[in-house]
């Protein structure tokens, strides 16, 4: 399975994310090939760990799933285009 191009989260079922998930994101040491990581919600509104990986990556990644401590994990494809400041 490949990561989604653009993740479309649902509205979180609770206003505040689980404390343990916040701690996980703050302390997370990204395993290769994870590039960015953060907080999102699944399409049905469950709080989840968000990671970006190269588009060609076969997911799920065992190491990331282990780090995720049972929280849902959303894998999004890291675009080829680099992130640039948006002045013109």
């Amino acid at each position, binding site marked *: 399975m490949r990561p989604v191009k653009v993740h479309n989260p649902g509205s979180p079922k609770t206003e505040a994310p689980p404390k343990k998930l916040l701690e996980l994101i703050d302390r997370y040491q990204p395993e290769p090939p994870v590039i*960015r990581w953060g907080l*999102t919600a699944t399409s049905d509104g469950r709080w989840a760990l968000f990671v970006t990986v190269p588009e060609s990556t076969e997911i799920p990644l065992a190491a990331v799933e282990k780090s995720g401590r049972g929280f849902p994990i959303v894998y999004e494809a890291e675009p080829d*285009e680099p*992130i*640039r*400041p*948006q002045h013109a």
Partner: protein
Amino acid sequence: MSALNEVLSAIDDFRSDLFSIQNSAEAALTPTAARAGLRGMLGNLVSPLENIHATGVGIRRKVGELLPSEFVIKVYVFHKVAGLGKLIPKILAKPFHGVDIDIEELPVMQIQAKKKATASATTPAQHQARRRPIPGGAEIQPRGASFVGTLGGFVRSISVPSTVFALSNNHVLANTNRLPIGTEIAQPFSASLTDVFARLTSFETIQLASPANPFPGRNRIDAAIARVSNLTLVRTGSMFGISNYTPSLKAPLPGMTVTKSGRTTGVTAGRISAIRVNGVRVNYGTQSAPLIGTFDGCIQVVGNGGNPFSAGGDSGSFILERATGRPVALLFAGNGISTTACDLTAACTRFSVIPV
């Protein structure tokens, strides 16, 4: 009697004024209106100002007859109420910038058709034009620079509330750590002193990796403020093309529907796909000579319907929750698919300011 070009040049300012008044509807009521109890006269409408649903440029209609050489600002209402112009919003009670105002009733079925045709509230050219007073969402730049960005919005000092600043990005107001404090900020793209409205006051230094410093610190914000030199030049509490702007910070959430007013793509809508995003690497240099800043705590936004939420020139825009108009993030980067913003609360805390 006004010519077409006179009305065209007045209509944007008129709309901005009307939006502002609609956001503080009670303040706009004249004592006469309050006494007349217009709320009751308009039935279920919450405020007399909600009776107005559209504006435009048109030909004067007098006693049912069109006068083709007389151009006016048209104000369309759900229900025509006798004496509306005299009773409510002061803005409707007299000519605006010398242009007469016609109030016309437009039935609901026609409104829906019209709304479809005018879905895009502003054009990029309007965001790039010279605007006085200046609202959030307008094109700005360090005077004479070769690049432009967007004025996110206005903020005021917590310790000295009368001091107002323009808030945008470091890379817009300070050219990525390069410009000295006191640099003149112009609206729009201009080398003229007459377009200066603020001076660079403070910026958060962006930590950039270079061969000499391959492991710099990480960043949380790309932000800077410029003190407004003359408050009559700006319109606080106003976001160009967004009528419900409410200058009160709100925390971003995944799935939140958002909007922004920016210099290049105008008013766009999108959805927050992730928050607290760490490890975002942004190249402030070139492909051959990269200058990488790594950001934590970012907000990621994707545009609605596959459309880009932002493009080059939109940097500095406030990202607002669409439903409430409250600012949730400060746009600073993107890659054509998603837009990256930083924590606006962190930026306000850094400069000890709040939106105004």
